[in-house]
């Protein structure tokens, strides 16, 4: 199984005060903990449980994630930009690993 790879879509530029749309996708099986294997044993839960979006260090949007979120979790949300800077995206896995991605935006 491949490592979790994130994909993020952020506009390259915007005007100050614009509300932009951000889309994120990350590959992850999101094992719900509801399924059983061929022997009848429950396959333990293993999901991404938190997603955070920050801009220049400040929190923009966050999501507490439960196993009912589909595999390859997708989030689309908004951000109001007033200055240029860097968006940082953080996904936290049940097993403690974190996955991150960054995108810059020019705001005029």
């Amino acid at each position, binding site marked *: 199984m*491949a490592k979790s*790879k994130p994909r993020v*879509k952020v506009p390259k530029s915007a005007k100050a005060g614009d509300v932009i749309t951000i889309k994120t996708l990350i*590959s992850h099986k999101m094992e719900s903990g509801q399924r059983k294997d061929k022997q009848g044993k429950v396959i333990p839960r293993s999901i991404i449980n938190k997603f955070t979006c920050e801009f220049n260090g400040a929190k923009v949007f966050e999501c507490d994630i439960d196993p009912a979120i*589909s*595999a*390859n979790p997708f989030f689309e949300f908004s951000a109001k930009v007033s200055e240029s800077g860097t968006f940082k995206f953080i996904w936290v896995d049940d097993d403690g690993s974190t996955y991150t991605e960054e995108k810059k935006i020019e705001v005029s």
Partner: protein
Amino acid sequence: MSGRKHDVKNKLIAAGLAAAVAFTSGIVGLSADPVDETLSIDGNPMVSRTKAPEGYPFDEVMSGWLFRTDETRALQSDSFNNPGMLGVEEGEAIWNTVEGSEGKSCASCHNDAKESMKGIAANYPKWDADAKRPINIELQINKCREKNMGAEPYAFDKSGQKPLTAYIKHQSLGTPVALDLGKGELQKWWDDGKKLYYTRTGQLDLSCASCHEQNMGKNIRADHLSQGQVNGFPTYRLKQGGLVSVHNRFRGCIRDTRAEFPKAFSDELMALELYVTWRGSGLSVETPAVRQ
């Protein structure tokens, strides 16, 4: 067990199962007709409906995309939204990874796939003169790995096979499927594939044609039956939450008729893939398609 008792029991099982498999012409809100729309990916129109090849049972070939709900169709129209693209990206990483005794990656010989692989998947399966049988992208990858990279061939559906196949086929996105049946003995394999397509198998006594030709457009339980095209494989199936290969789909369908299902890349399934691909001639390659 006496022959007669066995016979009656089987008939009862078949009847019970057939009742569950009843074809209905429409269920609560689900349209029984394919939509009258054109698939556009990132603004680029695809050929999702076209005039059928000679000797085809229908006038028109139609992409499976047309038979899905609004939400499922929307997932494919934007390549960012399409979860199958995660697999394509994984394939791109594999393309650039060195593997095997020769210290090569796919890129070592083929450079940028966007150029070297552009449009080629639309012409597969092709004739493999070495193996004297049809060859698809999965087997072509394995052939290259063994002969040129000194790497182990991928086992069916394992390791990099699905993402790499999806990445290569994705370089043909939009290109109409077009096979050259004149090469080698492809025509004979096409005949074999056609025969398989129309042969009823399993306890449910169904052939591919039973659903995808005779009942195309109707519902089997709540599934809206398409023409069973393969122009979008490997496909991101919502059911599996991941990429699904053609041979996996064939095996699953045959298994669900309660028949023994052939091995992946067996003669039967290669013949079937060849014939079914031909049935989609003219449709754009949609890999990775999004289906239920």
